[in-house]
């Protein structure tokens, strides 16, 4: 019980930190934050259930007014903003990423990459597009078009999520709670 709680809480903190540090340059010169990478890692490392709970805890703290979303955003206002769909999609993304790593017996890195694509791209952009369409009063295809500039960065992050999860499994076998 205690162990589950601390794992969930500390990975929630990890999502926050990955959104805050500018030191991590994913690809030199491209200003994308690693926050959604943190969300994917929550799923691939902690597994579906704990990963989604970690993301929910992180979002609870954001709602409470801590400036932990990338760019120092926070507060309940983010629920009224155009990116609300992505916020709803965060826990779904972690859950699906974790589910794929748990259920699919492929090599860890491949499963983590596939899970990140399913959760972090498919589910996240589905939610994000619906949210943006509602808030900005656009049709779904129009909102999807508005979201496409971010797709490249997120695709890179799915590859990195696979590589990092694989790295964790190699450095310490048994570190991945999604693969007991």
């Amino acid at each position, binding site marked *: 019980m205690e162990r589950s709680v601390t794992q969930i809480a500390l990975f929630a903190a990890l999502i926050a930190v990955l959104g805050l540090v500018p030191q991590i340059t994913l690809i030199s010169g491209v200003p994308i934050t690693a926050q959604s990478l943190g969300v994917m890692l929550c799923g691939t490392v902690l597994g579906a259930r704990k990963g989604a709970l970690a993301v929910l805890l992180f979002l609870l703290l954001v709602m409470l007014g801590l400036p932990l979303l990338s760019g120092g*955003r926070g507060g309940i206002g983010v629920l009224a903003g155009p990116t609300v769909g992505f916020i709803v999609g965060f826990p779904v993304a972690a859950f699906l990423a974790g589910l794929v790593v748990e259920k699919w017996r492929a090599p860890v890195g491949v499963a983590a990459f596939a899970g990140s694509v399913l959760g972090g791209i498919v589910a996240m952009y589905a939610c994000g597009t619906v949210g943006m369409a509602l808030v900005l009063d*656009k049709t779904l295809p129009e909102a999807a078009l508005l979201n496409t500039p971010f797709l490249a960065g997120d695709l890179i992050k799915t590859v990195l999520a696979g590589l990092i999860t694989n790295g964790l499994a190699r450095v310490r076998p048994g570190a991945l709670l999604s693969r007991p």
Partner: protein
Amino acid sequence: MLTLTSPVETRLHRLPAGLKLALLALAAIGLALLPLGGLVLAAAAVVALYLAQGTVFAAHGLRMLRPLWPFLLVLLVWHVFTADLPRGLEVALRLLTAVALANLVTMTTRLEDLISVVERLAAPLARFGLSPRVLAVSIALVIRFVPVFLLRVNQLAEAWRARSRGRANWRIVVPVALTALDDADHVAEALRARGGL
């Protein structure tokens, strides 16, 4: 760690947090349904509410809306393109008013007040195994460990720069995640040693 609560003490700080959140929820539904005339009035009311708390507070509130400008720009360009500017302005006004109102609650409510509201709301969840104490400990752990991990990332990045000519890249996430898992084990043991959750 800094929260988004405004350091400028206002009358709104003294209202109960639960009341403010309930009013905000009602106002958010109202804003989505209002016709244009009512929307303009509501927006004016929100501006007046900000200004009534003093100019320093209002300026802070304006800065809190900064992350929205790229979206407003896109909206503007889009609706100029489709020759339907009034509709675009209405959508923008609705968005700005809703976010400003929610920010007002965030700026005038202290973290501890909001946490106690969460604890009260989560009390019924105890039946499903989520005791309010677990939730409170989790919130406290996140708040404590964000600066710890920030420091660790900085140390690892410095060590990286000492060894290499380039800046730290994504590989640094591996040791950060690994130490997070280790910390989780240690903190869990410490919690158990003190009676557990």
